[in-house]
C-alpha cells in the first residue's frame, strides 16, 4: 500500500513538472495582464524543438532549442497583440493552431509519415542525497529529473522577484493598472512583451520536459491541452507562485489517480477525476473574482495613449 502511495506521489510530481513550468510562464504573462492562449503552441513548438535539438547536440541542446522555439511562438503573439494591437485571445488561439499544424507538418515531412519511433536521449531521475530518503515524500520530491529541482528554485525565485524587485513590481503594476504604470515611467507594452516571451520560453521548456524527461520521442499534438491546463492552474493557484505549485500538483495527482484505481482494481470512472480540477477551477473563479486575486486589468487591451 505504501508502495502504491509512493509511486503515486512520485508520478504526480513527474506529471506536474511540465504543467508547473508552463503555468509559471502563464503566471508571469497574466501578472502583466495578458491571457496567453498561445501557450499551448509554445509547448508543442518546444517539444518539437527538443526533438530537433537533442538529435543534434544531446539533452542540453534539446532544452535550449525547446525554450527558443517556445519563445518564437510567443513572439508571434507579442507582435500581433502589441505591435498590430489585435485581440489577444484570437491571436493566441491562432498561434496555437499554427504551432500544432506546423510541428505536425514538419514532423511528417522530416521524419516520415509514420513518424518511425524516433527516440532521443532522455534525462533520468537523479536522487538527491539525504533528502531523498525522507519517508514517502522524499522519493516523490527528490527522486526526479534535474529540471524538477530547477522548477522548485524557479517558484521560489519568482515569488521573491515579483515582490522584492523593481522589475517584479513593474510587472504587477502593468497587470493591475497599466495607465498608472505608464504614468510612473513604465512602458506597459514593453513589460507585456517581455512577459509573453518569458512565458513562451517556459512553455517551450515544458514541451522539452515532455520529450526529454518523459516520453523520449515526439508525437503530433503531444502537448495535449497542457497550455490550457496551465491557465486553469494559474487561476486555481490564485495568481501566486506557491499557489501555482500546489494547483499543478493537484492536476498532476488527478491525472495519476486513474493508475492507482487500476492497480487497486477499483471500478471508479477516472474521467470524473480528470474533470474535477477543471470544475474546481470554475468554482475558484467564481470565488476569487470578488476577493480580487486576479490582476485587475487581466484580459483587457492597453489604452492607446498609455502604452
Amino acid at each position, binding site marked *: 500500500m505504501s508502495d502504491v502511495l509512493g509511486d503515486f506521489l512520485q508520478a504526480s510530481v513527474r506529471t506536474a513538472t511540465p504543467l508547473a513550468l508552463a503555468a509559471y510562464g502563464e503566471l508571469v504573462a497574466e501578472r502583466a495582464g495578458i491571457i496567453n492562449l498561445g501557450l499551448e503552441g509554445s509547448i508543442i513548438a518546444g517539444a518539437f524543438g527538443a526533438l530537433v535539438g537533442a538529435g543534434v547536440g544531446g539533452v542540453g541542446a534539446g532544452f535550449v532549442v525547446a525554450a527558443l522555439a517556445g519563445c518564437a511562438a510567443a513572439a508571434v503573439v507579442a507582435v500581433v497583440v502589441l505591435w498590430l494591437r489585435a485581440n489577444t485571445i484570437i491571436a493566441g488561439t491562432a498561434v496555437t493552431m*499554427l504551432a*500544432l*499544424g*506546423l510541428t505536425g507538418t514538419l514532423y511528417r*515531412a522530416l521524419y516520415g509519415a509514420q513518424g518511425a519511433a524516433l527516440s532521443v536521449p532522455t534525462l533520468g531521475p537523479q536522487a538527491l542525497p539525504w533528502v531523498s530518503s525522507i519517508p514517502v515524500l522524499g522519493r516523490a520530491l527528490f527522486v526526479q529529473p534535474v529540471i524538477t529541482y530547477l522548477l522548485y528554485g524557479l517558484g521560489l525565485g519568482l515569488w521573491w522577484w515579483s515582490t522584492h524587485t523593481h522589475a517584479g513590481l513593474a510587472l504587477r503594476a502593468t497587470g493591475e493598472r497599466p495607465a498608472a504604470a505608464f504614468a510612473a515611467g513604465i512602458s506597459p507594452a514593453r513589460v507585456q512583451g517581455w512577459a509573453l516571451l518569458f512565458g513562451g520560453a517556459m512553455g517551450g521548456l515544458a514541451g522539452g520536459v515532455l520529450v526529454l524527461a518523459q516520453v523520449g520521442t515526439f508525437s503530433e499534438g503531444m502537448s495535449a491541452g497542457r497550455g490550457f491546463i496551465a491557465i486553469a492552474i494559474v487561476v486555481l493557484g490564485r495568481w501566486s507562485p506557491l499557489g501555482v505549485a500546489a494547483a499543478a500538483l493537484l492536476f498532476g495527482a488527478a491525472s495519476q489517480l486513474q493508475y492507482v484505481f487500476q492497480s487497486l482494481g477499483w471500478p471508479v470512472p477516472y*474521467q470524473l477525476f*480528470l*474533470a474535477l480540477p477543471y470544475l474546481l477551477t470554475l468554482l475558484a*473563479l467564481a470565488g476569487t*473574482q470578488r476577493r480580487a486575486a486576479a490582476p485587475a486589468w487581466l484580459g483587457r487591451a492597453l489604452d492607446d495613449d498609455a502604452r
Partner: protein
Amino acid sequence: MQASRIRWIISAVTVLVIVAAVFAVLLAGGYDSSRALAALWDGAFGSPYAVLSATLVRATPLLFVGLAVGLAFRAGVLNIGAEGQLLAGATVAVTVGLMVGGLPRPLALPLVLIAGAMAGAAWASVAAWLKWKFGVLEVISTLMLNFVASYTVSWAVRGPLQEPTRVYPQTVELAESVRLPALVDGHRLHLGFLLALALAIALWWFLTRTAAGFRVRAVGASASAARSAGGIDASRTAALVFIASGALAGLGGASEATGVTFALYEGISPGYGYSAIAVALLARLHPLAIIGTALLFGALEAGAAAMQRDANVPSVLATVVEALVVLGVLALDRARAPRRSV
C-alpha cells in the same frame, strides 16, 4: 459600402497569398506541388463525390459553429467554448436519440435536434451565468468547460452510454428514424446542411433587420455607449447572445451526430470549435459571409485529406492555412483601422 468591398477583396487576397505561400514552401520542401495541387482540387471539387460527400459534409459543422462564434463575437462575447457546447449538443442528442428511436421520424428527429440545441445552450449558460453573476472572464470559463465536456463524453461512451458488448468506447448506432435524411441518394450530404444555411440567413435577417439584432450589434460595438446612450441592458443582451451562441453550437453537434457519425464517440469533433474562430473571423462575423468561409474551409479540409492520400502531403497543413488566415486578417485589419481593438 466601398470600404466593405475593399475589406472583402483584402480577405480574398489574404487567402490566395497564404495558399500560394504554403505551396511555395511545399515546392521548396521537395514535394510534387502540381500533384498536391491537383489532389487538393480533386478532393474538394473534382467529382460529385468530393463535393457531396466531402466538402459540403465537412462544411456543415463549420457553418453551425462558425455562426455560433460569429454571433457571440458580434456582441463582444469571446466564446472560446463552441467545442464544448458542440460536444454537449452531440452527447444529449445521441442520448435522447437512443431513447426516442422507436417514434416516427417527424416526431423523433425534431425532438433530438431541439435537445441538442438546448444542451449547447445550457452548457453556454454556465459560462454566461458565471460572467453575469461573478464577472468571470468567459475566455477562461469556456475553456474549462471544453475540458469538462470532453471528459464527460469520454466517460459516457465507456460508462452509461457504451454499446452493450462493452468492447468499443462508443454508443450503439442511432435508429433510422432519428437520422437526418441524405439530400442526394448515395451521398453523405444531409439535411443538416440546409438547416445550417437557413439559420445563416435567419441570423443575418435578425442582426440587420430587427431591433433586437441592432441591440446586439450596439453592445458589441461599445457596451458602455449602448448602455448610456441607447438605454440597453448590455449584460443581459450579452448573456442572451451567449446562450443563443451555445444553442447554435449544440445544434451543430446534434447535426453531426444524427447526420454523419450516427453514434457518439470521443473524437466526434476534430476541433470544429477552434476552426470556427477562423471561419467567423475571415467572414468578418457576417452571417452570410460565414456560409462562404465555411464552404472554403470545408473544401480546404476535404482537399487536404485527399492531398495526404494522393501526394503524401501532411493534411495538418490545412490547420496551418487556417491559422495563417486568422493572423493575416488580424494584421490587415489593424493596418487599415489603427484604433480598433478586436
